[in-house]
C-alpha cells in the first residue's frame, strides 16, 4: 500500500522545483508544541505541534471550521481580543514564547503582521493606511522618512505604480484586489518578520488572486509567511510546506510536494482528492 502510493503521479501540480531545494531548508522560525484552544467550553484545537521555517511560505489547508484561522490567530495573539477564548501550550518565535508574561501583544503584533480574508483598509487615505503602523510604533522620525517607508512598502506590495499619483485618495476607493495589496503594504510597513494571511484571496477574482500569489512568492525572500487557504491549487502554487488540519487536529505537515503527491495519512489524501471537506 505504502509503496503503491509513492509511485502515484502528483495529484496536483506543485510550485516550481527551485523552492524545494532540501539543502536550503530554513531553520524553524516558529515552534509550536501541544497547543489547545478553547472557545468557552468548546475545544477548537487539540494539541497541535508544528515547526514553521522562516523565509518560506507555509500553507494551512483543511475543511472549514477545522481551526485554521484559530491557529493562525494564536501566533500573533489575536485570540486575546476574542472574549472567552483560551489558549494553552507553547508558541515560540525565535525561541521566545509569545504567551510569556513579559511579552507585550502590541509589540508582538508589530513583529507578526496579519492580512485578513476581507480587505479591510481603514477609512483613511492610501498614504495614511500604509503610514498607520509606522505612526503608532514611532518608526519614522521625520516626514520624509515616513514617505520613504510608505513608498517602499507600496512598491514591495506591487501597488506603487497604480497609486503613486493618488496617495491622498481614500483607501476604500481602490478595487478589491488593490485593497488587499494595500493591506499587505500596510502590514509590511512596520517591517515584520512574519506575515499571517487568512484566506487572503477568497474575496478576489482570479486575476487579482494571481497578482497576490505572485506577490506572496516575492515576499517569501524576506518574510516568514503563513497562509490559510481553502484552495488546494493555491496551496500547491505558493507554498513550500503544507499542513493539513481536520476537526481541530493537525493531521499532517511536510513539504508541499510530498503532501500533495504522497501523503502519509489517508485523511489527507481523501481531502486532497475531494473525498472529504
Amino acid at each position, binding site marked *: 500500500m505504502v509503496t503503491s502510493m509513492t509511485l502515484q503521479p502528483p495529484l496536483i501540480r506543485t510550485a516550481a522545483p527551485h523552492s524545494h531545494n532540501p539543502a536550503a531548508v530554513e531553520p524553524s522560525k516558529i515552534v509550536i508544541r501541544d497547543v489547545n484552544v478553547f472557545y468557552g467550553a468548546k475545544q477548537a484545537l487539540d494539541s497541535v505541534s508544528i515547526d514553521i521555517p522562516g523565509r518560506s511560505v507555509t500553507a494551512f489547508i483543511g475543511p472549514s471550521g477545522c481551526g485554521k484561522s484559530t491557529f493562525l490567530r494564536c501566533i500573533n495573539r489575536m485570540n486575546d481580543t476574542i472574549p472567552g477564548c483560551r489558549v494553552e501550550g507553547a508558541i515560540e518565535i525565535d525561541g521566545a514564547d509569545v504567551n510569556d508574561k513579559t511579552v507585550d501583544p502590541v509589540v508582538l503584533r508589530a513583529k507578526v503582521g496579519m492580512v485578513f480574508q476581507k480587505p479591510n483598509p481603514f*477609512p483613511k487615505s492610501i498614504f495614511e493606511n500604509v503610514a*498607520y503602523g509606522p505612526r*503608532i510604533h514611532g518608526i519614522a522620525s521625520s516626514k520624509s522618512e515616513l514617505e520613504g517607508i510608505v513608498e517602499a512598502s507600496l512598491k514591495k506590495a506591487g501597488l506603487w505604480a497604480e497609486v503613486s499619483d493618488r496617495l491622498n485618495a481614500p483607501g476604500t476607493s481602490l478595487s478589491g484586489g488593490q485593497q488587499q495589496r494595500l493591506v499587505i503594504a500596510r502590514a509590511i510597513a512596520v517591517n515584520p518578520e512574519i506575515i499571517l494571511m487568512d484566506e487572503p484571496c477568497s474575496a478576489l477574482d482570479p486575476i487579482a488572486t494571481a497578482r497576490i500569489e505572485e506577490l506572496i512568492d516575492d515576499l517569501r525572500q524576506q518574510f516568514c509567511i503563513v497562509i490559510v487557504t481553502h484552495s488546494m491549487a493555491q496551496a500547491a502554487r505558493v507554498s513550500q510546506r503544507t499542513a493539513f488540519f481536520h476537526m481541530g487536529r493537525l493531521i499532517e505537515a511536510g513539504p508541499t510536494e510530498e503532501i500533495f503527491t504522497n501523503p502519509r495519512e489517508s485523511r489527507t489524501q481523501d481531502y486532497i482528492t475531494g473525498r472529504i471537506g
Partner: protein
Amino acid sequence: MTILIALALLAAFSASVYMLSRRRAVALAEGRSASLHSLPGYHGTWVALWAGVPAALIIILFAIFGARIEDSALRAQVPAAVAELPAERQEVFWSDASAIARGQTPSEISYQGPIGEALAAKTAEARRLSVIGLVSVLALSGVLALCGVLLAYPRLSKDFRARNRVEGWTGVLLIACSTLAVLTTVGILGSLIWESMRFFQSVSPADFLFGTSWDPQIAMRSDQVAAKGAFGAVPLFVGTFLIMLIAMTVAAPVGLFSAIYLSEYAGPGTRATIKPLLEILAGVPTVVYGFFAALTVGPSFRAFFNWVGAMLVEGPMDPLGQYLMTVQNQMALTAGVVMGIMLIPFVSSLSDDIINAVPQTLRDGSYAMGATKSETVKRVILPAALPGVAGALMLAVSRAIGETMIVTMAAGLQAKLTANPLDTVTTVTVQIVTLLTGDQEFDSPKTLAAFGLGLTLFTVTLALNIVALGFVRKYREQYD
C-alpha cells in the same frame, strides 16, 4: 352613544355575514376543501368586509363631522333679532341654542322678548336637525351594509379568488392608516403656517427674525398695539442657542465616551447592567428633570456661585465677586446642564449603535497592526463612525432646542440678549408656553406670535433632522 351602539350592531352583523359566507363556501367545496381556490375563511372575510367597512366609514365620518354640518345648517337662517346683536353675542346665542338642544347647561345670559322666541325656535330646530342627521346616517349605513352583502355574497364560487381580494382589502386598510398619519402631519403644518401668516401680517418677518427686543406684553395694552420691536425674537434665539450649547457641552463628550466605553471596553456583564440603566435614564419624563433642575441643581449652583462671590468681594476681583453674589436660581447654566444630563442616554445609545456598526474587520486590522485599544478607537473607529456620530449629535441638538419642560422650570422668563450662562435667559419653547397658557384671545398678535415661534422652531428642527438622518443613512450604506 347611539353611534357606539350602531357600530356594535354593525360589527355583529358583519360577524354573522362572515359565518354565513364561510358556511356557503364550505358547501360549495362539497367536502373537498382543496377544490376551492381560497380557504372558506377568506370567502367569509371578504363578504364581511363588504358588509362592514363602507357602513362603518359613513358612521365614523358622521361622528366626526356631523355636529359641524348640523351647526352650519342651523345657522343658515339668522333670525332678525339675532342679526342685530354684536358678533360675540351672536356666537354665544348659537352655542346656547346647541347646548340647550343637547341638554347641556347654557351660558348665564337670559334671553327675553324676540331673542327669547328666536332661541326657542332655534333650539327646536337644532333638535330636529340632529334627529334627522342621525336617522339618515343610520339608514344610509344600513342600506350600504345590505347592499354590500347582496352584491358580494352571490359572487362566491369554487373558483372565486377570495384570498387575493382579501389581500387587496388589507392593502387598502394599511394605505388608509398611513395616509391618515401623513394627512395629520400636513394638517398640523398647514395650521402652523396659516396662523403664522396671520401673525406676520401684523409684525413683519424681518422685525420678528432680526429684532432684538422681545416684550409681547406691551402689545396687550391698547395704546401700544404691536409696538415696534416688541416681537423681536433674537433674544429667544440666543437664549435657546446658549442653553443648547451648554447642554451639548455636557451631553456630547459624556454620551460619546460612555458609548465608546460600552462598545469597546466594557465586558458583556458590565454592558448588560449599564445599558438598561442608561435606557431608564432615557425614560425619565422631562418634567422630572425639570423639577430636579429647579429644586436641586438651581439652588446648589446658586449657593456655589454666591459662596465663590463672597470669597472674592473686597479682594482684587471685587466686581466679579459682587456679581456672583447676585446670581439667582434660574440661569442658563442650570437648564443647560440638566438638559445635557437628559440628552446623555440619547447621545450614548445612538452613538453606541453607530460604533457597533463599524465592521469588526477594521478593529481586527488595527489590533493586528499592534495598535492599542485607545489608538484603535481614536484612529480607526471614531474616524469611521464620524459621519454617524455627527448625525447623532445633530439629532440631540434638535431635541435640545425643542425641549420645553426643563427650560420652563429652570431657565427663566426674561428675554435678555446675553451670552452669560449665569444670567436668566428664556427660550423659544418657554415663550410659546407662556404665550399660550391661560385664557387667550386667538387673534391678538401676542397669541399669534406663538405660531410664528412654533413655525421657526419647526423649520429649524426639521432641517436639522433631515440633514442628520441623511448623515446617518449615508454612514450605514458605507458599511453595508
